[in-house]
């Protein structure tokens, strides 16, 4: 069995496992009204076909294909499916040791980039949360309808500007003879122009900025659903503001916080355009390295392996965080 047939078989197995898990879950929950009784046969069938098609064809199959690819060697098209096309771990080995044959030295450049990306994404996510929480709280509990509209507009309109344009705009703002250095110079603060881009300030700012909305909306939704009287009740019982936020608002908004943070983390760690444009010479974001596997080295199997490593790390990290905060995966969609 080679290539596509494996993809198909693996997809079937994944779907079967999923259905099995669902049936087990159902057993535990006891029997409610069946899916078809609730939605009618026609709509029920349509829902199953549509959702099934969407998940299988656009999510599971490409993923399975990429995973399969990541375990194969790089071969010229003529030899694909030939005798040399065997499963191998060498793409993963390359990530660890910088060579597909020896295991003498660690591939420090890539491993470092990988961990820097993860750690920087965690920090950026936390910074993002710190920025977004007060805004979301203001929007959800404090603002009048009119002010809410204005804030929403101010938040949304800047996002009509696309990622890459924004990245270049940041570049212009922060470059050595750019606007910010100009202002600093005018105020007599900076002796020599400061190299913001080299220090990755631009990269971090842009990554933070471009995921503000991703963080704000889940937070806003969660905080908005809290009865304002609860906040006033806490205040009336003598609580200072920090206590109310920590012990009344945040516990209520926990699912929203988790969903905002996980989304923000995933997208930050996986951002491509921004790091490529704004990363300084010393920046080593992991995604441009993955990108290079595909388009500089034309080594798709290795690219797939690298992308898969990043994805896996992100998923493990997110699940760990959810576990620690005592949330179930289903809850973050509330």
């Amino acid at each position: 069995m080679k290539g596509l047939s494996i993809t198909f078989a693996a997809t079937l197995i994944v779907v079967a496992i999923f259905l099995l898990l669902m049936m087990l879950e159902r057993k535990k929950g006891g029997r409610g009204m069946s899916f078809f009784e609730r939605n009618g046969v026609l709509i029920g069938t349509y829902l199953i076909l549509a959702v099934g098609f969407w998940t299988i064809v656009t999510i599971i199959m490409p993923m399975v294909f990429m995973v399969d690819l990541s375990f194969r060697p790089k071969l010229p098209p003529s030899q694909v499916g030939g005798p040399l096309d065997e499963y191998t771990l060498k793409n993963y080995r390359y990530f660890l040791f910088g060579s597909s044959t020896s295991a003498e030295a660690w591939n420090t450049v890539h491993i470092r980039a990988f961990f820097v990306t993860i750690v920087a994404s965690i920090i950026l996510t936390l910074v993002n949360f710190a920025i977004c929480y007060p805004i979301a709280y203001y929007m959800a509990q404090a603002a009048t309808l009119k002010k809410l509209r204005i804030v929403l507009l101010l938040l949304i309109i800047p996002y009509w500007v696309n990622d890459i344009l924004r990245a270049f705009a940041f570049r212009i703002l922060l470059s050595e003879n750019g606007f910010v250095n100009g202002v600093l110079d005018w105020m007599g603060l900076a002796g020599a122009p400061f190299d913001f881009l080299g220090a990755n300030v631009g990269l971090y700012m842009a990554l933070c900025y471009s995921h503000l909305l991703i963080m704000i909306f889940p937070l806003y939704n969660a905080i908005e659903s809290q009865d304002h009287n609860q906040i006033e009740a806490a205040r009336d019982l003598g609580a200072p503001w920090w206590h109310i936020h920590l012990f009344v608002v945040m516990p209520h908004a926990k699912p929203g916080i988790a969903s905002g943070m996980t989304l923000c983390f995933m997208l930050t760690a996986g951002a491509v355009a921004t790091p490529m444009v704004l990363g300084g010479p010393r920046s080593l974001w992991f995604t441009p390295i993955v990108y290079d596997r595909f388009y500089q080295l034309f080594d798709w199997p290795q690219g797939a392996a690298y992308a898969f490593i990043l994805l896996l790390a992100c998923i493990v990290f997110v699940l760990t965080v959810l576990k620690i905060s005592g949330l179930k995966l289903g809850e973050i969609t509330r």
Partner: protein
Amino acid sequence: MTIAVELEKVSIQFGSFTAVEETDLEIQEGEFFSFLGPSGCGKTTLLRTISGFTHPSYGKVRIGGVDMAGIGPNKRPTALIFQNLALFPMMSVAENVGYGLRVRGVARGVRDAKVARLLDQVALSPHADKKINELSGGQKQRVAIARALAVEPKVLLLDEPLSALDLKLRQHMRRELREIQQRVGITFIYITHDQGEALTMSDRVAVMNAGRIEQVGDGRSIYAQPKTSFVASFVGENNAIPGTILATEGELATLDTPVGVLSGRNPTRLGAGGEATLFIRPELLRLSDGTPSECAIPTRVGSAAYEGSMTHLQLDAAAGTRIMASVIAAHASAHPQVGQPLSAGFDPHHAVVLAG
């Protein structure tokens, strides 16, 4: 007696809308004081002003003699029980009750002991570890009371806390609230639009209408000696008969009305010639089928509704006026024929004539 809460020329505006007009009021320490009024008359607004969530546009609020201007709700010696209770659903019953103590940094041991005592007082000890959504309506009510009492407020403010309960439970909780108030001895300020609640529980009642306090007094005087026609018609059932004052004589006034010439007390000393309304309670009418006495309304029986101990008669008088009369069901006159003529008489000292 010392004054617990004092409002001095307090008025509250939202933009150009006046929610509470200039109000002076003193509430005594240890008093069960109720605000009674229809929806939207400004009761909640007034309560929120006392607890510090709303600021008076003019005037002063004093609690225990101290001017409360600039003192936030978290620093006032008041505790508010919200219309919807506003319990914390993510905390257990015990954590809810202990929240105010936790905020104050009371040591864990002391706190737990106090929470246990409070839960015992409101008969919730077995439910201490439950989550809020596992409780019944009446139990939630008691958690809210215990949570407010935990911080030992000088004044407990209650915003229609019983409105979500069914009738039986409401009556039970009325008694319970009154008992708790007498046991802890602090001032309760209670809001309701249910007159039965206000009259049975309170030491004094303030009847509010459209942002204005119309009358303050104990339940009996509010019911028997209304000072405005709003109070007369809002508190209890009342027959309102409009007319023109013909003459006044001592404390009585005589009115020319579409149903005849009638007299009643004239507490506000209205002068002759003015428009006024005569109010007479349904249970104070004396029905007879003999010749009408001096102060009586000739009527015909429209319908009769038997309600256990009382019978409520609807009587049709001249000019389309409807008169309600309530008679003890055991009484002979409680079983009239529909259409039968009846004379509804009353003692002029039982009726009251008010402007408007």
